[in-house]
């Protein structure tokens, strides 16, 4: 991957909505070139999609619960953890899944409408999988920071004086 592509990815990672014309002038290439680079990176699946970071706590009508689940599993011969991982990440309520080093094997982030919904997912779907040995569920109480962004009003409030030498 060349330097310009890296720079483009870093920019898009922070702001997926920046238009190609602006990006082109920031990294000193033609706009056409930026479009081509994005297309190529999409094809290579380096860029997988574009989403919006939403602070759902601000949306009063929204009700939702997030939980992080630590899972211990027995890996299967031949496919290791991948097989059980796929069995888990196929569930749409699973928002993130990582294989971890340390005290447990898989870390799952699950989102649901209610706590009941999440406990049902754990007891009915997750725990009953053959390779799953144990689970520990932690409910999220408050989001302070997600994907590098602090969930706070007016965090970009400029504290500088208007004109300085």
């Amino acid at each position, binding site marked *: 991957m060349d330097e310009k592509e890296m*720079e483009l990815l870093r920019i898009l990672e922070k702001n997926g909505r920046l238009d190609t014309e602006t990006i082109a002038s920031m990294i000193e290439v033609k706009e056409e070139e930026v479009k081509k680079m994005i297309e190529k990176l999409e094809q290579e699946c380096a860029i997988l999609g574009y989403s919006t970071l939403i602070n759902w706590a601000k949306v009063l009508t929204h009700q939702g619960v997030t939980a992080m689940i630590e899972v211990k599993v027995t890996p299967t011969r031949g496919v290791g953890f991948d097989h059980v991982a796929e069995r888990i990440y196929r569930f749409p309520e699973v928002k993130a899944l990582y294989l971890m080093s340390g005290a447990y094997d898989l870390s799952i982030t699950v989102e649901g409408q209610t706590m009941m919904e999440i406990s049902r997912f754990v007891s009915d779907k997750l725990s009953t999988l053959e390779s799953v040995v144990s689970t520990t569920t932690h409910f999220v109480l408050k989001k302070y920071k997600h994907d590098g962004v602090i969930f706070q009003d007016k965090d970009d409030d400029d504290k500088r004086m208007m004109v300085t*030498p």
Partner: protein
Amino acid sequence: MSTYEKNYIADHVNELKPSGIRKFFDLASKMENVISLGVGEPDFVTPWNVIEASYHSLERGYTAYTANAGLWELRKELSVFLEANYQVAYNPEDQLLVTVGASQAIDLACRAILNPGDEVIVIEPSFVSYVPTIRLAGGVPVIVEATEEHAFKVQAEQIEKAITSKTKALLICSPNNPTGAVLSKEEMEQISEVAKAHDLIVFSDEIYADLIYDEAFTSFASIPGMIERTILISGFSKAFAMTGWRLGYAAGPKSIVEAMTKIHQYTIMCASTMAQHGALEALRNGKGSVLEMKTSYRQRRNYVVKALQEMGLSCHLPGGAFYVFPSIKSTGLDSEAFAEALLEDQRVAVVPGNVFGESGEGYIRCSYATSMKQLTEAMKRMRRFMEKLK
């Protein structure tokens, strides 16, 4: 004010002109919805590890004075930093002095060196405090103009022409505030020949050294034969986004740094202790943050220069700092009229170039140390303004 109020102010202070920046500050701060490109400091907050290190020093009770020249650990780390980054070797024992911002280092350098009437060559457009600082130290500033024709870089011949029997020092700032111009190594070598031939001391303000975008930085002190006649002045404000911490430093020949330290010990005692502990962390673990900020500045610079050129303002690509200095001569307005009209009409604050010396007339300084979101809005407003002027 009472008509009987006596003027107790010393003559040489009375004679100082108030800074033109002040007027714009007053105008802009009374208005709503202003986007300011007039700020001469980073838009980033100091990296968290630096803030945290300073907290931690307070928690451990480091609240007393430090050595006059600054914390020993900080001077040692600085000497390592200067050697690794700029290839200049300074002994932390007696060749480094930690100051209250680079501004104090310039003041100390002037006061340590200048006898009444000694001349200092200043390259304009320049930072607003050089001329007053030299005057307050009893020196006489002699202005040499860096023009757009040479991309705002002073030519060695120009300096040579300005030298008289009273010239004692030369003040250089590269990368430059307000033009963003960066002197190449060759240009520095040519200037250094003049300095050596006329036995001049060089005050090299290198505060923007780490914010340079197209080439490697060359310190004036690293030019052969210059370390013994250069006072390297820099600080933490710009690279580490620490303006409010007020922490800078000077490095130079032992005798000069000792003289500066003597004045410093009587007038200031030492720079702020908690700021020095923060700076230590900045030097040790701040490189990543500096690089990240630098990348962001470079991208914004590219964006702003292109946007200004597209709206019809001629603008050279500045090599460093975070300012662009476009010409507004094509509009027929002078710098102040342009800046005032832009502020009134579109609520964008810029600094008129004449604030930085007469040779800045016909230009404006736009700082791109502000978010892309603000910059795109500012460029949109400036485009509208330029359309109206046509």
